[in-house]
């Protein structure tokens, strides 16, 4: 019982921490967000609160962050190329890259990267079953929990689906993995069927959960913990206070400018 209470408390702490990071991502300049990103990577491996729940979750987290890191670099490059503001910071094959554009790209890209990393840490360290129990425990209706779970399940299984489709295409001789452009071309063709099949599966999955009584509002959480714990831990309170302080400070700075 105490283990389960701890587990619920831990998820609450993680959510509060993620909320703090989200606030920081929107308030901090890009230099600070770069530090937050690096700090998140360190905490993800060292803190027991934020460590991935399994080796598979760790692998998915690393892939997830890698994709967003690439996206951030791409955003910096594109903005530096197209947003012709400030001095020229570099010239590549006769093409000028501008400082103003690069900073804009860094600000937006790092914000996105920090948000993605924080969410990756939350879902990497919290198995969906525990997250569902937590949401039910804090009083969310089962229909809302169901919708959230179906969305999260879709996101979790998306890489596997894409990989399966790619393998099927490869078996037909389509060079889907030969280079980035081939991947993008095939992906754009497959996007609609992928989305449609996912929606259909979500409907079926929703029906199957309903057929197992999930819509019952009186369902009990694992080992009957509903409503046992709705208090905030000290750690959560600390994170939430810190988030409030960051917002207040930002507002104060904005008002005095």
């Amino acid at each position, binding site marked *: 019982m105490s283990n389960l209470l701890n587990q619920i408390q831990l998820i609450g702490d993680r959510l509060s921490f993620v909320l703090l990071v989200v606030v920081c991502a929107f308030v901090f300049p890009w230099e600070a967000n770069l530090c937050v990103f690096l700090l998140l990577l360190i905490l993800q491996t060292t803190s027991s609160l934020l460590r991935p729940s399994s080796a598979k979750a760790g692998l998915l987290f690393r892939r997830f962050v890698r994709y967003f890191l690439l996206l951030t670099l791409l955003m910096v490059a594109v903005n530096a190329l197209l947003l012709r503001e400030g001095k020229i910071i570099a010239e590549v094959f006769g093409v000028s890259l501008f400082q103003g554009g690069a900073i804009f790209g860094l600000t937006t890209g790092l914000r996105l990267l920090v948000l993605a990393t924080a969410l990756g840490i939350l879902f990497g360290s919290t198995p969906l079953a525990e997250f569902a129990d937590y949401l039910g425990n804090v009083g969310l209706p089962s229909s809302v929990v169901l919708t959230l*779970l179906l969305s999260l399940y879709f996101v*979790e299984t998306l890489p596997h689906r894409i990989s399966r489709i790619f393998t099927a295409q490869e078996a037909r001789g389509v060079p889907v993995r030969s280079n980035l452009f081939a991947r993008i071309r095939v992906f754009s063709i497959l996007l609609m069927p992928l989305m449609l099949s996912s929606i259909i599966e979500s409907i079926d999955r929703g029906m*199957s959960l309903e*057929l*197992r*009584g*999930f819509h019952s509002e009186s*369902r*009990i959480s694992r*080992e009957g913990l509903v409503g046992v714990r709705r208090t905030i831990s000290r750690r959560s309170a600390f994170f939430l206070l810190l988030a409030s302080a960051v917002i207040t400070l930002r507002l104060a700075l904005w008002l005095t400018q």
Partner: protein
Amino acid sequence: MADAISLERLSFRYPGSSKAALDEVSFLVPEGSVCAVLGPSQAGKTTLLYALAGVLGSRFANAKVAGGLSVHDEYFDGVPRSILFPRVSLVLQESRIQITGFRSTVREELAFTLQNLQIAEPESAERIRDAAEALAISRLLDRNPLELSGGELHRVAIATVLVARPQVLLLDEPARSLDSNSVFQLSRALNSLRKSQTTLFTDADLELPLQLADQYIVLNRGKVLFTGNRGEFINSLNHFVGLLPVDDWLEITGHLRRNPAIRQTIDPRIRRFLP
């Protein structure tokens, strides 16, 4: 013996469709029996199961319905308007869908159904143990459901509703895409459940129905073509050429009629299902 399921001229038409998915369907299924609903694709098999489970009534409020059905003496004018779980439990065609995907072990997956029913320990553990033993999945309880083979996953999917101890168990094409060995294991597991509830399952093939069922219903284009017991069904097989894959069975029964001695050369597992 009382009837567990009774349909009286039940008709159902999906909203926007000009064709009836079920057309004046009538039959009786005695309590404790195992009934196979057979027919080709688009025969109305899945619609029939959805009607019995309450899925049609809860999903298609504007559908055209006529007739009625009874489940264990409770009469419904038309189709039930809400899901009848746990009295009537349905296992969907794709077992992967039946699994929530967010429980890390089979044990937790089975416990999920019981949490929905507010059944706590120790009864929860007892029900999981009973269902696991009945479906021969005890050794799989601590495995991840998503890492199981097709046959194993199918039995786990059945267990996810069996823990609710339904009066009527509905299975939508349970033998679909299973190899012969898995079908045989499934048949053995379902056979062990015979006493505890009434089972109704659909199939487009004959392997599982001939191993397991004692009642047979043949549907085509929403209409009932045949209802009867095993003997009556086997004697009528030649009427279903083109609708069901009966050629092999007709060949075997034809050979048997001409030369009864070859009965001994047939695999004993198959032999016991022959007329």
